[in-house]
């Protein structure tokens, strides 16, 4: 049985199903209970499971992640929320210094299975600090898994996988996709494997690699060039651990790679993917690997945002450049 859902509803379903399956799953964060979350992802959960399992916390990100680490070390599975990407930064202290290394430093005696959900990305006409893409901070930290869906089906399956994972998972939710896409999603629980990319479109001449909202910009560009350039589009879905096999198999075939993301280009995920492609596919490359990413400047407020973020034009330009070699 299927239903047509947007990403918010798909995520909501995932949370509900997991909370039904396992009574130790606890949802917590600011405004997640009575208000159902500022984006309604946790809508209805407090009503169904009570205020002790869907908890409205005081305004304190540091305490929230710290307490969640404590919960996780003692048998509870916290699924906590950072209300906006700008407010996940105070959590870096606890994530880098603790959550990511508890299993490592206790030689396996303790672990920290928690899920931190963060809405990320731009194109939502929001104020400062609300549209950034912080994935690199988390991907760079060893001991954390980083996941980001680009559609409702993957969102539900990946969140369920994240909740069932034994290690800390940073679950990033692209704001601009929350309501923009409706898709058929099975009603029952199912998982999408963490660490596996997905080929969204097959092609033979150029590989577009992306994640989150930018996957759809890549698909649009590929569609526009249909008949002129054959583009393969890969949705990474998991940023860490990276599915380099999928990426490498594609580049072996096409010989041309372009990586697209909203985050700043310097030391971004694209830089890592590009380095791994060179390591694995040097002898297949027909053109230099390109990155279409944000500039190395602060993401501007809505008025100038459109010049900053990648878009179909910038992606198309990169494709044409790759084909010119």
């Amino acid at each position, binding site marked *: 049985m299927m239903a047509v859902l*947007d990403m918010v509803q798909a995520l909501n379903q995932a949370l509900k199903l997991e909370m039904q399956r396992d009574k130790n799953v606890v949802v917590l964060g600011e405004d997640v209970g009575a208000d159902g979350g500022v984006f309604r992802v946790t809508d209805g959960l407090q009503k169904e499971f009570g205020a002790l399992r869907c908890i409205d916390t005081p305004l304190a990100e540091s305490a929230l992640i710290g307490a969640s680490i404590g919960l996780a070390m003692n048998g509870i599975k916290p699924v906590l929320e950072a209300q906006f990407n700008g407010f996940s930064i105070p959590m870096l202290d606890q994530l880098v210094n603790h959550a990511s290394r508890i299993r490592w430093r206790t030689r396996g005696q303790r672990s920290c299975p928690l899920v931190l959900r963060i809405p990320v990305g731009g194109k939502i006409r929001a104020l400062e600090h609300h*549209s950034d893409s912080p994935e690199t901070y988390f991907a760079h930290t060893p001991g954390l898994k980083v996941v980001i869906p680009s559609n409702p089906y993957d969102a539900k399956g990946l969140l369920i996988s994240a909740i069932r994972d034994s290690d800390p998972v940073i679950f990033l939710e692209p704001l601009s996709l929350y309501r923009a896409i409706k898709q058929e999603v099975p009603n029952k629980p199912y998982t999408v494997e963490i660490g596996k990319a997905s080929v969204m479109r097959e092609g033979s001449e150029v590989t577009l690699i992306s994640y989150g909202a930018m996957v759809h910009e890549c698909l649009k560009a590929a569609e526009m060039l249909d008949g002129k350039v054959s583009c393969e589009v890969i949705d990474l879905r998991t940023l860490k651990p990276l599915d380099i096999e999928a990426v490498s198999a594609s580049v072996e075939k096409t010989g041309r790679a372009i990586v697209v993301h909203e985050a700043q280009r310097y030391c971004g995920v694209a830089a890592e993917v590009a380095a791994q492609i060179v390591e694995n596919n040097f*002898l*297949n*490359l027909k053109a*230099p690997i390109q990155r279409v990413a944000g500039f190395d400047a602060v993401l501007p407020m809505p008025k100038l945002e459109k010049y900053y973020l990648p878009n179909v034009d910038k992606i198309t330009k990169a494709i044409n450049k790759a084909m010119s070699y």
Partner: protein
Amino acid sequence: MVTEFRLPDLGEGLTEAEIVEWVVKEGSVVKEHDTILKVETAKAIVEVPSPVSGVILKIYRKQGETVKVGEVLVAIGKKGEKAPAAPAPQKVTEKLGVVGKLETSAQVWQPPIAAKASAAYTKVLATPAVRSLAKKLGVNIETLNGTGPSGRVTEDDVVAATKGNVLAKEMPRESTPPVSAVKSVRKYDFYGYIEREPLKGIRKATAEHMELAHNTVPVTSMDEVDVTFLFEFREKEKIKGQKKKAHITFLPYIIKACLDALKEHPRFNAAFDDSAREFIIKKYWNFGIAVDTPDGLIVPVIKGVEQKSIINLAKEIELIADKAAKRTLDLAELKGSTFTITNIGVLGGKFATPVVNYPDTAILLTGRIYDAPVVRDGKIKLRKLLPLSLTFDHRVNDGANAQRFMNKLKSLLEDEKWIKKWQI
């Protein structure tokens, strides 16, 4: 532009209101912020101001009606503009997210259908540099079999595929325009017309090469060799050589003689290292052979002279002369000399003071063989003489050495037994 004004959010959680009174009517002129109607909520009577200045074009709801928040009340615009006959449907912006606006879609998104499964692809392994070379040379790399590690296509594979004198295409050439095309700028100087010729091509290279040797201290030692026997010997060998398609000149014998002489006097087979203040004695013998071409002086190098027969040497000399004239020598063939021989004899002339081929320390110039009366055993005989000029770098050698070297050369070229060694 027509503004459709909707009942705004009245706050306090109220979602609808009753129209108590329209303060304006269709056609009224209003200013931004003027009250245009009064509504009654559950609590109070609220005055609703106009959002824009303009003319009331059409009023959609009547006094006494209950209106929901977001429903269109009135159209305001410029005089004469047409308002829509019916009001647009109620629009309620979803209060979501606390910050920003989320886009919503009504359509169901289908994951894109995979394009036709891509056909089997040719897997060619090659570095980007090799791919670039292939493109430059017009080779379709996908058609090549690689001979490199793991079946990699190498640079040589690409070059071999071009079928033909690839090296010719690859040799770095200086552009040498024919003389007639040399651009000259007529000018006067104080005394009369002059013509300027810029340094180009081989001329430029030669000039620069000569300038490199500015630290050399050149001294030229001159002498003559009695080549009467050699001359006759060569006449006979020449006929034999023709049968083997080789044109035998005196040069192969001079090369062999120099080889032996250099082995005995290694300091003439050396290079001077200015910066290290050392001279490097070479333990191998590569002969630069100066060739005069229409474009200028080119010095290709013959290597491995010891192993080569007179025939081979003759053939090679011919080949490089031809290549030099056609400008098809590659860089490797122009490098590595340890001693240079230059022959002006073809044109005539006896002695000269050749310039050492930097960074070597010695060069031998051969003039034209000529008939001359010489005194032998008190009697005048007609002999064939070959003039030799040996320029050496005085920092490495002295005049006495040079004469010893010259003497050795002479002794070999006048030694019938030694000459006969080279019989084909």
